[in-house]
């Protein structure tokens, strides 16, 4: 076994891609195609330029991109080689890990016995400890990993933390300088100006330009946080550990993917239905309109929480009755996550559908569509060429507005017991688990706090970004 471990590198893997991973990739490709398309069309670029020139929106956008990067790294799953067989072929582990897991390996591996407070060096609960002379005392045992390096070092804990913060700060400062220089030289080449000029202009800021100072401050904060966690989180449990001793910082970072998947895939799944049915109802009118209206009125008249509950219960039963279809616990949890996205999508498409129907009703009477009809253009072509591009701004506004609501909904649903699988790491499950420990003395507050802080950060930036998107795309609000 020892020799095997020496010869196997971590990158000797086979991909094991989950269902939600595929959908995340599809979403990424779709966004890429849209960006490529939008670059060439001025009327599509203009609102985005407008958004990115607002300081708050720009900074939210960068933070959201940081979240998205973590989520994407966490969506590349593979199984690692654990052993070499007799014939030289590799044996792969049953557990699939993600690229992100590999990146934060120390966080994942450093598990304690049970709870420990943030930056603690001792466990939360007392245990029998056998001393060197054979006597047994009852005390808080030392942690296996948290602050373990302090025992063979002359530094005290606060000095150690200070030293690490200073190291992280100058590393971050150096990186920020490099980033600024890189971006400035890119701008200099693009605008054919001298580097000094560009730097000066960035520092002064322009009235109608990219708010570079905001960009650099936000990037600086993110870089600083990365270096701080690299310095501190590898040797301490910065957010403590949970009941089974897992690092809470690791858990809350892993929850980002679950939150993002629910927020984005739900809309991705429901969009085709909502767009198709909404436009069809408005464009064709008559009995098609009646049928579609009946469908969405019926669906929206069921209280959405109850519909979700009923559907999740059914899926639970379905999974329990067919245990053979899912080989690993992870696949099961993943299918449940996907099902949850489907159900949330079913309950949330009716609003968009109704709006699109109203807009198409208005558009079909407009002159250019009347003209297209008079020329004998087919209905399909009118819908795809004339109506669809003219309702896309409504779709976009609703998608970004829905995102934060869906992330929050996940936490509530997990609490009710109909959210993601209990084995899946998510903010809802973290809160649900921590809630029961509020009665303990001293109180176990850290996993609750970590989940809330990260959730707040994601939802707040998403809300701020959504507001900017709405202002830029809603023609009624545009000045």
């Amino acid at each position, binding site marked *: 076994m020892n020799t095997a471990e020496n010869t196997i590198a971590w990158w000797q893997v086979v991909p094991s891609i989950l269902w939600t991973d595929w959908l995340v990739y599809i979403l990424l490709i779709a966004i890429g195609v849209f960006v490529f398309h939008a670059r060439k069309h001025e009327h599509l670029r203009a609102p985005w330029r407008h958004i990115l020139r607002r300081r708050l929106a720009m900074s939210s956008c960068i933070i959201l991109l940081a979240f998205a990067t973590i989520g994407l790294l966490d969506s590349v799953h593979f199984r690692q080689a654990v052993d070499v067989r007799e014939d030289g072929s590799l044996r792969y582990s049953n557990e699939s890990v993600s690229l992100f897991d590999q990146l934060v390996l120390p966080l994942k591996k450093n598990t304690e016995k049970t709870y420990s407070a943030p930056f603690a060096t001792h466990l939360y609960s007392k245990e029998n400890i056998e001393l060197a002379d054979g006597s047994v005392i009852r005390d808080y045992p030392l942690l296996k990993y948290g602050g373990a390096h302090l025992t063979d070092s002359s530094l005290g804990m606060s000095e150690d933390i200070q030293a690490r913060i200073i190291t992280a700060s100058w590393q971050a400062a150096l990186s920020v300088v490099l980033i600024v220089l890189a971006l400035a030289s890119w701008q200099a080449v693009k605008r054919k100006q001298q580097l000094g000029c560009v730097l000066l202009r960035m520092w002064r800021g322009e009235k109608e330009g990219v708010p570079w100072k905001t960009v650099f401050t936000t990037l600086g904060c993110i870089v600083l946080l990365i270096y701080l966690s690299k310095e501190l989180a590898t040797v301490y449990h910065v957010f403590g550990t949970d009941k089974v001793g897992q690092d809470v910082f690791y858990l809350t970072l892993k929850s980002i993917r679950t939150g993002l998947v629910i927020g984005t895939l739900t809309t991705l799944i429901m969009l085709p239905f909502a767009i198709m049915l909404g436009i069809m109802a408005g464009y064709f009118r008559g009995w098609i309109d009646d049928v579609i209206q009946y469908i969405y009125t019926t669906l929206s*008249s069921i209280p959405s929480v109850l519909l979700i509950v009923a559907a999740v219960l059914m899926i639970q039963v379905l999974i329990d009755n067919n245990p053979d279809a899912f080989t690993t616990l992870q696949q099961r949890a993943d299918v449940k996550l996907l099902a949850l996205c489907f159900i949330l999508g079913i309950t949330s498409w009716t609003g968009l559908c109704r709006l699109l129907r109203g807009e198409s009703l208005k558009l079909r009477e407009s002159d250019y569509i009347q003209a297209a009809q008079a020329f004998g253009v087919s209905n399909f072509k009118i819908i795809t060429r004339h109506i669809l591009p003219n309702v896309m701004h409504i779709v976009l506004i609703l998608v970004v507005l829905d995102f934060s609501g869906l992330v929050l909904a996940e936490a509530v649903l997990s609490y009710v017991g109909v959210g993601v699988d209990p084995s899946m790491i998510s903010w809802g499950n973290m809160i649900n688990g921590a809630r029961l420990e509020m009665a303990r003395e001293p109180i176990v507050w850290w996993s609750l706090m970590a989940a809330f802080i990260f959730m707040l950060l994601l939802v707040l930036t998403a809300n701020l970004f959504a507001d900017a998107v709405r202002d830029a795309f809603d023609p009624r609000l545009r000045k």
Partner: protein
Amino acid sequence: MLAYITRRLFYAIPILIGVNLITFALFFVVNTPDNIARLQLGVKNVTPEAIQKWKANHGYDKPLLYNENKTGREALTETIFYTKSVRLFVFDFGLSDEGRDISHDISQRMWPSLAIAIPSLIVGLLVNISLSMLLAFFRGTYIDVSGVITGVVLISISALFYIIGGQYIMSKLWHLVPISGYSEGIAGFKFLILPVIIAVVGGVGSGTRWYRTIFLEEINKDYVRTARAKGLSELKVLFRHILKNAMIPILTGVVVIIPLLFMGSLLTESFFGIPGLGSYTIDAIHAQDFAIVRAMVFLGSVLYIIGLILTDISYTLVDPRIRLA
């Protein structure tokens, strides 16, 4: 008016049939009556006879949608779908899978739900309207900007945090109110304070934000300019003219949720141990009691449709220009 209401009520029937079909499909296509029986009987008592007996007792011993053994009308009526749905239409919810009378439970548990929901609605409405008027009055100033930003932050906080934080601070640290519980009559008042406060604080962000846009929309209208031109003070314009007109969209927006207040809140009630309809539903979910969940889904849909009709009626009441035909 009466003709309109009657017609709307008739329109509701196909929608309710649709609701029933959806819940029926959700509950019985995946989960056969045999499965339900096994679940309810527990692992020990599962014998074929016991399952048959349980199904006969609870009315699950018929085919799902179409009875091949009967002819004519009875082929459709002697089925689980028909018997279970028709009774829902006359609000006879029957027995839960555990054997309790659902209608009786609902009539009992409706009151605690209302005791929380009605004060939350009224206090919330007052707070939201006053705050949004304040922001509209100071529009464009730092008070407005900071108010809007605070609103976004408040929206971004999870409802769970409000509940857990409120319970911790108000009950555990300050010992002001009991952490959870419920009792009838005057003695129950102290149990209601915390849930109501949390419901109001939790809703203040989105409410204020929404009402502020309503106020700002009114502020730019012609009649406001006329009022100012007459020489009225800004405060008088706000209270005498804008408030009255802004109340139309605010109140009609509230009407649709009034019937749904009966359903209670799933989260608040289960966190505070209030024996209302919300916690009833959650308990049913945890116990996988499908009869109760179906009854609640049906009840919720009926109340939502009533809310929509009430909204239309309220439009005509506050705005005489709108006629219902």
